[in-house]
């Protein structure tokens, strides 16, 4: 039995890697994409272009504007002198936001506060707008604090002392890069499995495989093993890049990470093989791969938190193996999460893996053409 499985595994690996284009597609793009996406996917804003419309032109207004020009988040691109220019600049996306300091700014400021600062921001991408407004609020708060100290005003009776654990500087890259590692691992699992049975069915070689002494379980193992080997190897490379290139801290145990990786690959490969053995043509296999991959990524909590989703969609995410692996990845990388939290992620992935692998093996023989 063992040597039959080994022979089949070798044949599967050869059929994946002997072709130059296929070898290239499996190995190179995931690594390149990690580097590109790792830099691209961040919610932090840098050098956001903004315009200043300062009608007051006082020391105080220049002080306030200096808070913006001095921030790494903003770059002053336009000084304007008319209200109408704001609409034009924002419409054509020349600036993301405009700050407008009215003519009475310094007078109001000196006579007891309530000096108005108007900020107009392009809300076409409302998330970017909200992040930019958060930066604006920080700058204004800092200005207010400094002004109160300077003029001897009383400080508020209580102050907020906010600290962030696990990611003290709130770098979104620390959150996103481990997530991308999970994403690309799933992509590799799909690349290896989703079309493999479909191709053999379309070419008729799968029927030949079925009439050999190989039992469905052996075929299953032979089809799944290359995915495991390639997936493990690439995931290891991706984790190394995350740690040594992107310098994301790895605080938890490698054992916790690799148990999670193993179970995640098992569920990903299970889903891939199930899709593949359901399909009659490779076109259907490809469609199936996308119909799984896209929701799996978007509903995993990778970029948008699961907690923000409506209750019914949250229930649906329980079927998504990626959801659990995201918690494992971030738990191991950043939080040094306790084992009990890990275990409650492990068993759903194991369950999904077993169910889909069983279904795939059953479908090998029972798929009706």
């Amino acid at each position, binding site marked *: 039995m063992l040597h039959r499985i080994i022979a089949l595994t070798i044949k599967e690996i050869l059929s994946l890697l002997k072709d130059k284009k296929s070898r290239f597609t499996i190995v190179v793009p995931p690594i390149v994409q990690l580097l590109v996406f790792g830099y691209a996917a961040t919610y932090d*804003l840098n050098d956001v272009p903004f315009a200043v419309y300062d009608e007051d032109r006082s020391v105080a207004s220049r002080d306030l504007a200096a808070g913006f020009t001095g921030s790494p988040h903003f770059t002053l691109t336009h000084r304007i002198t008319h209200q109408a220019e704001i609409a034009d600049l924002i419409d054509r996306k020349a600036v993301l936001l405009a700050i407008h300091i009215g003519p009475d700014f310094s007078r109001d400021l000196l006579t007891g506060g309530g000096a108005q600062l108007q900020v107009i921001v392009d809300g076409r991408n409302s998330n970017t707008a909200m992040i930019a407004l958060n930066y604006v609020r920080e700058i204004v708060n800092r200005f207010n604090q400094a002004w109160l100290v300077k003029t001897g005003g009383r400080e508020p*009776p209580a102050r907020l002392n906010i600290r962030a654990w696990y990611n003290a500087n709130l770098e979104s890259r620390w959150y996103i890069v481990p997530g991308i590692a999970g994403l690309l691992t799933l992509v590799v699992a799909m690349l290896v499995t989703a079309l493999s049975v479909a191709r053999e069915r379309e070419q008729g070689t799968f029927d030949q495989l079925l009439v050999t002494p190989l039992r469905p379980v052996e075929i299953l193992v032979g089809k799944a093993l290359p995915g495991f080997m390639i997936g493990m190897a690439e995931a290891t490379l991706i984790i190394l890049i995350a740690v040594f290139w992107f310098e994301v801290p790895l605080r938890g145990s490698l054992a916790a990470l690799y148990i999670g990786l193993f179970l995640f690959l098992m569920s990903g490969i299970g889903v891939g093989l199930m899709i593949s053995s359901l399909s009659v043509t490779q076109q259907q296999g490809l469609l199936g791969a996308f119909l799984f991959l896209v929701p799996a990524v978007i509903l995993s909590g990778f970029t948008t938190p699961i907690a923000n989703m409506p209750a019914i969609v949250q229930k649906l995410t329980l079927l998504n193996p990626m959801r659990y692996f995201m918690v494992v990845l971030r738990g191991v990388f950043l939080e040094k999460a306790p084992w009990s939290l890990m275990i409650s992620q492990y068993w759903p992935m194991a369950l999904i893996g077993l169910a889909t692998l069983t279904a795939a093996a059953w479908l090998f023989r029972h798929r009706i053409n």
Partner: protein
Amino acid sequence: MKQQSAPGGFRRLRGLIRKEFYQIVRDPSAIAIAFLMPVGLLILFGYGVSLDAKHVPIAIVVETPDAATADLTRSFERTEYFEPVRMADMSAAVDALTYHRVDAIVHLRGNFARRLHEEKGAPIGVVINGVDANTARLISGYMEGVWLNWLGDRARSEGTQLLTPVDLRQRIWFNAEVRSRNFLVPGLIAVIMTLIGALLTAMVMAREWERGTMEALLVTPATMGEIILGKLIPYFILGMGGMALSVAMALWVFDVPLRGSLWMLTGTSALFLLAALGMGLLISIVAKNQFIAGQIAIVVTFLPAFLLSGFLFDIGSMPVVVQYITHIVAARYFVAILQSVFLAGDIGSVILPNAAALVLLAAVFLGLSRKKARKRLE
């Protein structure tokens, strides 16, 4: 002679298109791609994806409860942004944070009430789980809001006014009520249409080569240009149908406003679809077989369109090298166009350069397809 060949070419083209339509009807996966996928994915994501955090679970630890702390705690309970749970001590709260039961802790020490009257003021200790930096920032923004409201209420009850030197007035244009769905749905349409475009055509040329039917087509009088057009036109029609369905859903299911014109939307969608289909065709021609075409399609379509199109992540904030790379992602231009046409209107200075880029990309993809396909004849 030339005059005669034109109607002949048209007749041949019609024949090729009819053949492709028969194939589409026989394997309904292409119809599923064009119509089922946009409906299913848009419903799932339109409802599922949101960046608006509400009812964030937080723990509140009060060491010595009294009137002052009760007042502040009530402020946290009143807002819809938080779902506070009182906890007896910090160790219970830290436990809840570790196990993801709460996202933040508010900690009021025993001397809170007394220190309110000191010159430096009393500290309100806040610990946030910072793993998800974006959400953590949102939470700290909400915290500040609660804090400022509480300060204002307190000042009013003491008969004074809260002194804020500069009062920030913010106005968010195009999406005043900050519905993240308004920008996510147009962005999702661009991502979904990228998939549809590539999925429809990635397999079709490779399939003909793989099955040997391409040789049969090549010995007919049909030219390579006609063969490619014969592939392109049916899938273009299918794709535009899928696009129309997506737009209808955006408008009537998700209530996204359409402030630009329908013809602008249609025209730019057609351009984008040509680029997306062209990319699929090129994949199909380069790959030679369906297996590799499928692999390439998985790798180059979804994730780049999702992460490099500016749909979620601001392109201007990416490193310059990555910004250059985003220029070869067609979805990037379509996201910019869709967000403007839906939310702002027909703004020529945004739409024209992006539409021109789409024309260029479509020309490159289709031109390369034509060239690569012709080479294989020799």
